[in-house]
């Protein structure tokens, strides 16, 4: 694809799902084209990965606005770094390394501000009816997730939500595989304990 070729539509008719992440061969072609300065190819990468990146950032940061800023910043840095990207490194862990770095930076900034946990839709009035059970469950998980140390939260999300292998997680985080396994294990233990305490408190 030439950078001077005709502009073509890059937006699909529907929002992407995880299954829409480009297959390896297609992704390689997109990345190579984007490295050559092909705008539609880069736009296609943004299209394919934006929602996944936003999901990760939302769970890391707990704030929609901060997450969107982190994702936008991630893609700016991805574009900047594309010339130095080498194919022997898988694209997704490379992308998640940049994203995780932006989330860590945003997380540090966030801790300097007043900590207000945002998750889901905030009712207009305090007297609004209680959210349904599924929403309440997600909010409880979000609160439990927010209590984890950032390294554990990051490892848990990469492993259990983003389905990265431990090798890819090592690329994305720079940590060793044993350390990552320990972070995931501790995160699981903490989440189980927190959610069990919530169950016990409701029954009491």
């Amino acid at each position, binding site marked *: 694809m030439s*950078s*001077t070729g005709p*502009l073509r*539509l*890059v*937006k699909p008719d529907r*929002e*992407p*799902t*995880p299954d829409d992440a480009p297959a390896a061969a297609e992704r390689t072609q997109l990345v190579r084209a984007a490295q050559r*300065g092909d*705008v*539609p190819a*880069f*736009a296609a990468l*943004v*299209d394919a990965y*934006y*929602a*996944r990146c*936003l*999901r990760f950032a*939302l*769970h890391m940061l707990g704030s*929609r*606005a*901060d997450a*969107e*800023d982190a*994702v*936008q*910043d991630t*893609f*700016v840095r991805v*574009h*900047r770094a594309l010339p130095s990207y080498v194919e022997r490194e898988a694209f997704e862990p490379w992308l998640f390394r940049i994203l995780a770095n932006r989330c860590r930076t945003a997380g540090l900034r966030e801790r300097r501000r007043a900590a207000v946990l945002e998750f889901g839709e905030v009712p207009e009035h305090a007297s609004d009816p209680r959210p349904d059970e*599924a929403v309440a*469950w*997600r909010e409880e*998980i979000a609160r*439990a*997730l927010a209590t984890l140390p950032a390294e554990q939260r990051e490892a848990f*999300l990469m*492993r*259990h*939500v983003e389905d990265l*292998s*431990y*090798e890819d997680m090592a690329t994305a985080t720079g940590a060793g*595989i044993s350390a990552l*396994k320990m972070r*995931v*294990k501790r995160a*699981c233990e903490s*989440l*189980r304990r927190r*959610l*069990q305490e919530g169950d016990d408190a409701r029954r009491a």
Partner: protein
Amino acid sequence: MHDERDETDETIERIAAALRPLPEVAPSRKALVLVAVAADRARARGAGESGPRAWRLAVAGTAAAAVVAAAALWLGGRRSPAAADRSVPAVALDSGGSLARAGGARLAGRAGDALAPQVVELVFRAPEAHRVSVVGDFNGWNAGADAMTRDSASGLWSGTITVRPGRHVYAFVIDDSVWARDPRTPEAADADFGRPGSVLLVGHP
């Protein structure tokens, strides 16, 4: 080869299942990414290099058009000079619907040089309002500085502001009492005074 297995149980599976749904993404957010990348690229290239003389206002009726319009802004720098000359110098992205339906921003003037202030027209729908004004970082959030004019037929309020290239945050003040952000442009994460604001990106070559 490492053992990839984790000790999971029903609780962890339920947690993961609750966290996996992808968030809704406003189409304009993806377009904004491309605009941010284009702006970053323009900064990296420096003012001395040839590039788009100005940025185009992209108020798009569809998400696809928004993304393509943003890409077109970028391509403007690497395509023919004639294409670049057709660009205009402000960017405001609309996630859906036409400008006239609710609100938005479009460029009313043309670029003179990279840092020259640009005239941007703002439109807001408030048929029941008696007074509407624009407040933002460009006028010190002064509700008396930039009053808008009502079109009696459509109920739309319009007005122009003159701003330097860059990122600006703005909102509308209705009847001196109600603060509203522009629903058709992206919400600012760093709302001044803790009130909601919208983001206006005014480009430069």
